[in-house]
């Protein structure tokens, strides 16, 4: 617009006096309100970010593991000195494999066979886990005996920590788990390339172990997977069914009020009490095995139900009555009305309840305590009836370990749990987005 035009406009008839509707003040309020919203959202997300970044910064190193790659001589004299393996396969199982590893590393480092102190130090650099590592190699292929193979051996947890720089070398030698000699050897091996960090698949697939370098969340992952499956399969349908009954069918009377109050109240029951319940009902009464993920899943289902029911009821309430009237007026039965129209519209809320409920169940330790799932379990469960643990339990137990190397693994396990959570929720979140619509 040009000046000429705007001045011409100015000549026009006088504007009617405007009412004062406090527009400035109200806009300020509007901006403030909006700012509160942004601030609140930012607050939440910043804290999430802080939490996650503190976990990640502590835990990302857990996904690497120091290995010592050396030629190992599978000496027959050590494995099977009397050559009995043909008659007694058991022999191969119980041989002194760690000695093979120690000798191999000592040879590379040039430690004399009679330097007992030196050999002990060398031994402490290698994980005890090599026993099963080498044993499994030999049992799988007895022909290895007498040959020399290049093997990547697990480094001991302390060496791993030292190599990752987590043990301060300024501390007096007596006060740290790795002595100067070992540090020297470590550097020597690292320079020659024999000692290096590799991706730590073990933390994903191994069972729990008292040795940090060999510990993994494999069993806990399976356990959590079983439990979440059980929780999902049971609590979603049961929760939705219960909500439908209470919200749509139940006569509104004292009894249903009682049920409603009761469900709200169940959400306030401390989770460990669900453990007591599980112990009494599922283990002592029904005779299900201890430490089984089936029992854990059932207990967590009961714990999750109130969340899902409350969320679902709120969502059902929010569906406008005109939709129900429309369907009923067409001759749809109440059931059809609910399942065809009301439920799809309530779906976002239901899924939110499920997401939150499952997330809660995934991170919960206390109820598992009394049913024996806060436990050291080394063997993989094959069915939900076998003993297993869960991810938060593993985190809880590792957090209480004394060894330094468990600190990073604890954070590593938390990262894995968060990944698990995200994978678990992505489906539900996508589904929820599909169901969301504005009127």
């Amino acid at each position, binding site marked *: 617009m040009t000046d000429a035009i705007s001045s011409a406009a100015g000549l026009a008839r006088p504007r009617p006096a405007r009412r004062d509707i406090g527009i400035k003040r109200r806009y300020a309020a509007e901006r403030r309100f909006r700012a509160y919203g942004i601030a609140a959202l930012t607050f939440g997300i910043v804290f999430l970010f802080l939490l996650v970044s503190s976990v990640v910064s502590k835990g990302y190193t857990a996904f690497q593991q120091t290995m010592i790659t050396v030629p190992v001589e599978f000496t027959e004299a050590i494995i099977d000195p009397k050559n009995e393996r043909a008659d007694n396969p058991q022999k191969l199982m119980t041989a002194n494999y760690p000695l093979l590893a120690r000798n191999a590393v000592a040879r590379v480092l040039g430690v004399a066979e009679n330097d007992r102190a030196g050999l002990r130090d060398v031994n402490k650099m290698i994980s005890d886990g090599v026993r099963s590592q080498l044993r499994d190699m030999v049992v799988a292929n007895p022909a290895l005996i007498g040959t020399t193979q290049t093997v990547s051996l697990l480094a001991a947890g302390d060496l791993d920590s030292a190599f990752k720089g987590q043990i301060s070398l300024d501390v007096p030698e007596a006060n740290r788990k790795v002595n100067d000699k070992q540090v020297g050897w470590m550097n020597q091996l690292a320079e020659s390339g024999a000692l290096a960090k590799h991706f730590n698949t073990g933390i994903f697939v191994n069972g729990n172990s008292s040795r940090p370098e060999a510990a993994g969340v494999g069993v806990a992952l399976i356990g959590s997977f079983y439990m979440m499956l059980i929780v999902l399969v049971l609590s979603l349908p049961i929760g939705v069914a219960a909500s439908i009954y209470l919200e749509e069918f139940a006569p509104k009377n004292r009894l249903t009020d009682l049920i409603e109050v009761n469900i709200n109240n169940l959400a306030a029951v401390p989770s460990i009490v669900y453990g007591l319940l599980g112990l009494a009902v599922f283990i002592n009464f029904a005779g299900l095995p201890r430490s089984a993920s089936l029992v854990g899943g059932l207990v967590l289902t009961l714990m999750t139900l109130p969340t899902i029911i409350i969320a679902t009821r709120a969502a059902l309430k929010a569906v406008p009555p*005109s*939709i129900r009237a429309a*369907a009923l007026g*067409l001759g749809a039965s109440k059931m059809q009305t609910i399942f065809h129209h009301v439920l799809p519209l309530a779906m976002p809320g239901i899924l939110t309840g499920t997401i939150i409920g499952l997330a809660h169940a995934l991170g919960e330790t206390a109820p598992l305590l009394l049913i024996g799932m806060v436990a050291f379990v080394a063997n993989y469960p094959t069915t939900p009836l076998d003993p297993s643990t869960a991810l938060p339990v593993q985190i809880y137990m590792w957090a209480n370990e004394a060894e330094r190397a468990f600190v990073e693994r604890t954070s590593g396990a938390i990262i894995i749990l968060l990944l698990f959570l995200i994978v678990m929720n992505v489906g539900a979140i996508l589904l929820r987005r599909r169901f969301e619509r504005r009127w």
Partner: protein
Amino acid sequence: MNMMSEAAVEKALDEKMNEVSYKMVGRDVSVYYGDKRALFDVNLNVRENTVTALIGPSGCGKSTFLRTLNRMNDTIENCRVTGRITLDGDDIYDREIDVVELRARVGMVFQKPNPFPKSIYENVAYGPKIHGLARNKADMDHIVEASLQRAGLWTEVKDRLHESGTGLSGGQQQRLCIARAIAVSPEVILMDEPCSALDPIATARVEELIHELRANYTIVIVTHSMQQAARVSQRTAMFHLGQLVEENETDKMFTNPDDQRTQDYIMGRFG
């Protein structure tokens, strides 16, 4: 039984006969919303293959009465109905009666358009689907097209059948609801001001539709337009303050009503 007088038996029999000869019969129908009484002992018969118009000032209970005819007020929490309403002689408030079946036989178009938040196609196809009226997809397509056409919506929406029904204009939504209702071909169709959101042409189309339907169906229509009542209905009932003032042939009603209030209302003289 024996204690019943001859006359009483006669009377009961008469009433029974009466109920059968009409499609629907309302006898002493009263409706309460909580403590508030919205209908007072209404006695109204609906004849088969006839269009009955309900008129009366806003808030007089027309919608309320209409809803009693297919028990839609069951869904209003504190609503209570007394009296007796029959369909083909069967008490529809009987415990034996399947309310779903009833509503499939007595369809309804509401005052406020309320399409499902689904596609236009699904909106219309929903009723036939649950009642199993279409044997296959082609059948269904046919029903949907026919219903939309009869409701005068087909040309406007035929290219957007799979867009949401809530994205239509107000009048289009109402026509969609009409299409949805006639798609299940009920025996009785209740229409609560079906044309209030429609333009004259669409209104004419719906009125034509009502004419057509009358041959096979029974129709009860609430309307605020005297002209419309005069045009489409054979009988008219006038409500006032929850009471049935008069029920009569439409022609008579508009030319020579029995009740003064009817006359006044039609002349636009009170309120």
